[in-house]
């Protein structure tokens, strides 16, 4: 297994970016919760691996109303933050997985086609967060939704968002250590008063729910409208039939909390 893999362990963010270069042939090991089993089982056979454990990319920085979270920050380090991100992080996996899993890994999580993954993504989308990453063409800062649509060969450095006026998170209550959350909705009333909603577990990556946002003043109508924003996944964790019944409920609950 992986005998010929070149393993790099950069000891600073700059060294990590330099070692990553333009990506391409580099497999990133953040917390390892996704990638290490893939390597163990031979699904991924890296030529070159970048272990970020000592790269100094972790930390939550709150200066004024701006929150910046390093890529190697553990999910458990987020669990005390305000909704939607805090409760969303606390809902992920179990305490051991949360200690090990990282924000960067969650934003880059790729499950087999059609299986939703990346529990934190919905909260970041709802917050209107931006991702700073490096790779071909140098550093890039972009909205998290844009990053999720085009994230091959990128090394995440950090994620930034402005503290919202209010936030809420609701999920299907089900033990799911081994699986990403079957369905969850994050919502935020941003600093400018606008409401943003996003679902995790509905589609392979998080999706924004613009039709539901447009109906935000009527939580019941918004719940129904949300169904028009996403083609719901049907998988072993939850059928599309079930997701279709739960999504409106979660949207309604989130909007009721946002008030």
């Amino acid at each position: 297994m992986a005998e010929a893999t070149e393993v790099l362990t950069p000891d600073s963010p700059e060294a990590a970016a330099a070692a990553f270069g333009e990506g391409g042939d580099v497999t990133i090991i953040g917390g390892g919760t996704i990638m290490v089993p893939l390597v163990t089982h031979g699904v991924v056979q890296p030529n070159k691996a970048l272990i970020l454990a000592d790269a100094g990319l972790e930390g939550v920085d709150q200066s004024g109303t701006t929150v910046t979270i390093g890529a190697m920050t553990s999910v458990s380090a987020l669990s005390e933050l305000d909704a939607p991100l805090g409760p969303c992080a606390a809902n992920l996996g179990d305490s051991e997985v949360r200690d090990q899993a990282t924000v960067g890994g969650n934003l880059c999580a790729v499950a087999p086609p059609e299986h939703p993954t990346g529990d934190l993504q919905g909260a970041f989308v709802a917050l209107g967060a931006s991702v700073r990453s490096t790779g071909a063409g140098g550093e890039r800062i972009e909205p998290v939704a844009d990053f999720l649509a085009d994230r091959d060969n990128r090394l995440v450095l950090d994620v930034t968002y402005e503290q919202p006026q209010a936030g809420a998170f609701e999920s299907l209550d089900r033990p799911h250590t081994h699986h990403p959350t079957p369905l969850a909705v994050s919502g935020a009333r941003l600093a400018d008063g606008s409401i943003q909603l996003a679902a995790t577990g509905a589609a392979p990556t998080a999706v924004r729910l613009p039709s539901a946002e447009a109906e935000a003043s009527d939580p019941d109508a918004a719940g129904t409208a949300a169904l028009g924003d996403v083609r719901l996944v049907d998988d072993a964790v939850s059928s599309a039939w079930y997701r279709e019944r739960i999504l409106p409920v979660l949207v309604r609950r989130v909007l009721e909390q946002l008030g």
Partner: protein
Amino acid sequence: MNITVNGDELEVRSPGLTSLLRVLRDELDVVGPKAGCEAGGCGACTVLVDGAPRRSCLTAVAAIDGAEVTTVEGLGAADDLSPVQQAFVHYYAAQCGFCTPGMVVAATHYLDSGGSDDRKEIQEALRGHVCRCTGYVKIIEAVAAARGGNFDLTTTAEGGYTTVMTGDAK
């Protein structure tokens, strides 16, 4: 690379991306941690890395070069069981025993870091640990009781254990 396992500093020669679980079991012959799903979903491989519970199957060994690892073997010996291990015996908290090493490691950390005997909190602490014999009730009872460390174990002539509870049941 070097890691300290249950107090012994050992050299690791496996490739850096090898999981800590496979290093422990296949290279270092420390077989307490069990290979269940090897994908982070069962908790049978949980060990302490620098004092914190961690899934060894999710950990690339190169990411913890120089760390101190404690497996279930490091928590007690056959003739000197830890309070959690004694409680597991007393409550018959092990059926097939496959999940037990991970359960004992996680429960020990939970209690050592001030965990209470509240059933819900114990459940949350052990949430990532699957017992396919479904022996959860006995496991949770054992962890709650282990907080008092109130067991008196004696070795039987056959090499097994009998236990007498010496404190109040909780």
